[in-house]
């Protein structure tokens, strides 16, 4: 079970409280986690990564295990602690103005 922490505005949009738990089959990567997230919550499509290019939106960051993974390849395996559910994968809205 993969744990994902969403920023407050996206929790409101997806109508969830607290962490989201997802089943991810195969390798646990940014791409497979976000695919599973969007499959469960289609209203989040386009809000974290671009609809067409699948690029991370400029003011969204990905953190896990105390590291900034935003610039990692979307197909790089996430840390083992995320894959086992010991640590959450954090989607963060960057501090960028009002």
């Amino acid at each position: 079970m993969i744990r994902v922490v969403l920023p407050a505005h996206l929790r409101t949009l997806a109508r969830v409280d607290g962490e989201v738990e997802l089943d991810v089959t195969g390798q646990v990567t940014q791409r497979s986690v976000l695919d599973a997230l969007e499959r469960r919550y289609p209203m989040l499509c386009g809000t974290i990564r671009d609809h067409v290019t699948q690029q991370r939106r400029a003011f969204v960051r990905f953190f896990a295990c105390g590291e900034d993974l935003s610039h990692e390849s979307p197909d790089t395996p996430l840390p083992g602690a995320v894959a086992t559910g010991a640590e959450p994968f954090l989607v963060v809205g960057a501090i960028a103005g009002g």
Partner: protein
Amino acid sequence: MSKVRVLVGTRKGAFVLTADGKRKQWEVSGPHFAGWEIYHLKGSPADPNRLYASQSSGWFGQVIQRSSDGGKTWETPGGGVTFAPSGMPKGESNKFVYDTSPATGKPLTTHQWYDGTQHPWEFKRVWHLEPSLTDPETVYAGVEDAALFRSTDGGKTWQELAGLRGHGTGPKWQPGAGGMCLHTILLDPSHPGRIFIAISAAGAFRSDDAGKTWRPINRGLRSQYIPDPTAEIGHCVHRIAMHRSRPGVLFMQKHWDVMRSDDAGESWREVSGNLPTDFGFPIDVHAHEPDTLYVVPIKSDSEHYPPEGKLRVYRSRTGGNEWEALTKGLPQSDCYVNVLRDAMAVDSLDRCGVYFGTTGGQVYASADAGDTWAPIVRDLPAVLSVEVQTLP
């Protein structure tokens, strides 16, 4: 008794203001979508309970919201768990993808960038949503970078009406200070296929075949700030308004100049007359008097506030040229707010109500066609848009 519902989009959420036909006591609901920019929300003329809202943020992009109960509850159209044949979620209500050239698969066109080079179109947000006059499931979206999209399934999926960008002048369009936005969409009730749109800073355009083909309608506009002041395109049109009973007559607030067309945009003439300044953003027409207009003069393009610190709506009862200042109930000293292009609306009660919102967060209402004004609310976030629905 009739009532009115005022839909207010702000920098940090949407608000719904309701009152009975007297328009004295108001209930305020909101903020809806708190923290998000709500550029526009508008109700369907065919089903007043169907509302559409454009919700966006610099962090998370564009979201379309829809209500089927007059704004009590909202949903992202298609945001439930539905799947395409590929197994991927459909969730496409916030997906605005520009058409590409059918021949090459490459971008349809580019536009002029600030440095004179050509630049690809990049979607930023929906500025304006215009529901169909007859079908609650059909709605048009004017977006930045300028293009027109249409949904025929209640906002679930969107298709570009690419004949607008592709008609030939696109490479000459360039952004205004607020971005290159398509901000005005007028549907002609007497010619079902006729659509007027306006873009900053390209100008006004018309389609007579439901959006398939387009042409510029800017003859008579004169803009000193462009190399050829009477060019076919390049004019910074801020807003166009029409009266339903006489859709061939159009009124325009341009960057500078208030203009009028009596031939569906084929030609324009200036009707600024005795306005203290002819710069401004919104323009609207009285619900029952097609020659009664409202504008809010703003000092200049670099000083976006009322002249002399006096917030004055100007009304013409003669279709332009002769204007009177409406001041009763509006601040007449030390007022330095702006009124944005989508932030004025009229109801269709008798007497006609007029509403506008300011960048200072006030929404003012007049229940007597502008003779007197009072604030409904004073301290909202900066107001981006105001629409009103007259309900039975």
